[in-house]
């Protein structure tokens, strides 16, 4: 077994286990931390396939941004020591059957499909390269989606502020 395979399976194991923990843990703050680990595992995977920039973004935005947001919201809405109640066993059962069924189906479909793995050499995904393409307006340029996403983010930001803002009458 090659080293890379060992590393991959380790990362995969970490991701799966922490994902599972994240959705089952009854302590909500822990759940958030497990999510962080699962996301970090993803970043590791990206590093492993030499997508450093993406990995960095993954870490910064997901781990640094979203998880922190989630933790803030937890702190704002829940007591730290409070344990979440157990989901009803029946519900757990049904959900488990449903998701497992979905998983099995997916795996079955995957197994039926023959992926043609390309032999072509991998292109360098350097930061500058990505940056040029992202802001390029020629063939294969992504400036339009980029701008759209910018506006979306702006809108989301304004929206978030407006929604979360206390109304004058509340204070």
């Amino acid at each position, binding site marked *: 077994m090659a080293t890379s395979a060992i590393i991959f399976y380790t990362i995969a194991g970490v991701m799966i286990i922490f994902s599972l923990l994240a959705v089952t843990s009854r302590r909500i703050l822990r759940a958030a931390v497990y999510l962080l680990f699962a996301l970090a595992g993803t970043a590791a995977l990206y590093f492993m*396939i030499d*997508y450093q*920039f993406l990995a960095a973004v993954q870490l910064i935005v997901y781990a640094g941004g979203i998880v922190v947001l989630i933790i803030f*919201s937890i702190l704002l809405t*829940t007591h730290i020591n409070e344990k979440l109640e157990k989901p009803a066993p029946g519900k757990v059962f049904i959900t488990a059957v449903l998701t497992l069924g979905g998983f099995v189906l997916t795996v079955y479909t995957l197994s039926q499909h023959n992926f043609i793995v390309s032999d072509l050499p991998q*292109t360098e995904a350097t930061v500058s390269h990505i940056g040029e393409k992202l802001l390029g307006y020629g063939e294969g340029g992504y400036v339009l989606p980029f701008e759209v996403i910018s506006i979306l983010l702006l809108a989301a930001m304004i929206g978030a502020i407006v929604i*979360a803002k206390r109304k004058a009458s509340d204070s």
Partner: protein
Amino acid sequence: MMEHVPISHVLIVTSAMFFIGAYGFLTRRNLVTMLIGVELMLNAVNINFVIFDRYLFPNQIEGHFFALFIIAIAAAEAAVAIAIFINLYRNIRSINVEEVDKMKY
């Protein structure tokens, strides 16, 4: 570096992650933890894009962009969602999903 790992294995991992996220979304009652499930699902899909790019079209970098955009959207979504949660919590002192059903009419 991934020559020894077949693509299907990676995909099985991501789909496992996706369905774990779905499981979380379906069983949890706290909105924040449901959001955690959603993030997991998003992340799983994200990995798929990257992996397809890596395995099937290594000469292109479009997969990067999808991943990047999804991350950006996920961030936006999380921000808005959390803003809604906080507002909701402020209004009904709870972020239990079962108590949020006023919009059905």
